[in-house]
């Protein structure tokens, strides 16, 4: 009997549930009625995941067939989309975790340039126009219209203070 992707996914979820039931919930929820709902939720997941596991051992799901069809489409269209998605994850992940340093405006500009280039926009003028235009639009909407100050980042604040002192 060959395990399908669904069966493997089910096994992965079941191992997460075991971790939750025997380690995470006991360590992070006090004993008594407070544990009722977290435990019930995990039991709910376990029951249906077990069902998925059994179904997964019997045959391929529609989703797997769709995925296979999508892969065939992808081959026709040209590869690279998965890599692009991964790159974008990376770009926006770095942007989010460096927000305290670069702030929304400088960080936003850099993330826009990087992600637009990743998605195939390479010509200089439109790239620069959109990358500058989007943070400017956000500045106008948030700081001017909604009167909400967005962090500019330590880097810009430091630069401002240097120029202010000089």
């Amino acid at each position, binding site marked *: 009997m060959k395990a399908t992707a*669904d069966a493997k*996914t089910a096994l992965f979820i079941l191992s997460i549930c075991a971790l939750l039931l025997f380690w995470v919930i006991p360590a*992070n929820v006090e004993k008594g009625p407070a544990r009722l*709902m977290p435990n019930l939720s995990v039991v709910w997941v376990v029951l249906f995941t077990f069902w998925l596991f059994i179904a997964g051992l019997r045959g391929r799901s529609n989703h*797997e067939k769709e995925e296979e069809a999508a892969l065939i489409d992808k081959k026709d269209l040209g590869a690279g*989309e998965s890599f692009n998605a991964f790159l974008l994850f990376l770009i926006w992940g770095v942007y989010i975790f460096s927000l305290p340093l670069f702030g929304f405006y400088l960080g936003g500009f850099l993330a826009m340039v990087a992600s*637009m280039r990743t*998605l195939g926009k390479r010509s200089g003028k439109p790239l620069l126009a*959109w990358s500058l235009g989007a943070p400017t639009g956000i500045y106008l909407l948030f700081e001017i219209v909604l009167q909400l100050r967005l962090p500019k980042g330590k880097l810009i604040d430091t630069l401002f203070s240097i120029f202010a002192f000089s």
Partner: protein
Amino acid sequence: MYAQLGEAVFLVFTLKNLIGATIGILVGFIFGSIPGLTGNVALGLLVPFTFYMDPLIGIVTLLGIGKGTSFGGSVPAILFNMPGTPQATATAIDGHLLTQKGQSKKALHMALYASVGGDLFSDLCLLAVAPPLAMVALKIGPPEYATIIMFSLLIIGAFVGSSPIKGLISAGFGLLLGTVGLDLFSASDRLTFNILRLEDGIPLIPMLMGLLVLSEIFLQIRRSYMGSEKSLNETTAQGNKKLSWKELKQAFPTIFRSGALGTFIGATPGLGATLGAFLAYNVSKRIGKDRENIGRGSLMGVASSEAGNSAGTGANLIPLVTLGIPGNVEAALILGAFMIHGITPGPFLMEKQGPLLYAIFLSLILANILLLALGFAFIRVSRSILHLDRSVLFPIILLMTTVGAYSISKEFIDVGIMFLFGIIGYVMRRFGFTPIPMIIAFLLGPLLENGVRLSLRLSGGDPFIFFSRPISLVFALLSVITIAWMLLAALKKRRLRKTG
């Protein structure tokens, strides 16, 4: 009721409210017409901005998006056989055939009239049905509430998405996420991992934006729409014949019937507009006017599917405002908007915020009139919107989501939470799990827990309390029947596969 209705009229007819509805509809048109960018993405993106608006204007803007998306999705379906939203799939069948016959303008106009007609029907039903239903809902106690929520979760998990089992697993994780924060009764920390921000629970808006908007964008990039761009260029020319009054008049019974069906489906938690559209389409094909031509390029086919899917927009507010149960993800997002304004939908909403609620209902009707007016203009400019460059659009949406997630609490951790849920949503979708039941279960989880624990307190810990009252017994039995039905369906499928 009439006094509240009178107060509501003054709230509705304000310039700000009209602008809110107009913006919502226009945003809905744009997002609905771009395949892959559904109304959920637009709603998820705009929910944080409603925090800065008056509650009525914010909610009306979001409802406008729902209406705009519903019609917006049918435009590329008719012109290019490329449904902008899943619920427009049935519209594409006859709509695109009409385009190939050189009658695209007729088809688009019929879609607009049917969309407005179906939607108007469901809005009037909402206005008529919600107040008495809320009165009944006031009489239900914790055991009834718990079993109703349990049944709704089973239905939502089983019907939203392509796999019922995966939907139910997703709902289970949503229930678990809903327990994060301080315990409702003892106020002790639960699964907060000593993170102060999590004491109030996982922040809703960043979670919604991550699961819906971020994951959708990453998935779109992975899938790439190069194939769709190609079909845009291969499309046939737009026809110029307008819809005649006679043709519209002939479609009235179809629009009415399909609107009624769509309303019924929309009011049932978990059964979405897509089902409403296909059901209305199939009924018209069996008993409707011009049934022999439905499927071969008939205006009645367009009218039935559009009225069927649009009717769900108003109807899915029925369980939300009467019981506090969001029947689909749009309602869940609107529930989020209610909550950021400190309004809790449910049976008490009619009592406490009657004028606001009636103002929302009336605004829905007003938005329909706006939809009709703006729809004609949109048909003219629709082609240019369909050609928006995704390499520009996606980064702008990503930038907006980060700012939106930060703007509510002004804490960087919310942006991180959004990103984390973006990854979770992406992984879930890659493996065939829809995050929608997770979101709805997350919202309903605390209500379910409250109902269960209060019931157990009332009965001294005896779980038979859920089977000892008539309403809770009915819903408990319905829940058992739903699971049994799923099991039987799975066994039947297996037997069919075996026999080949």
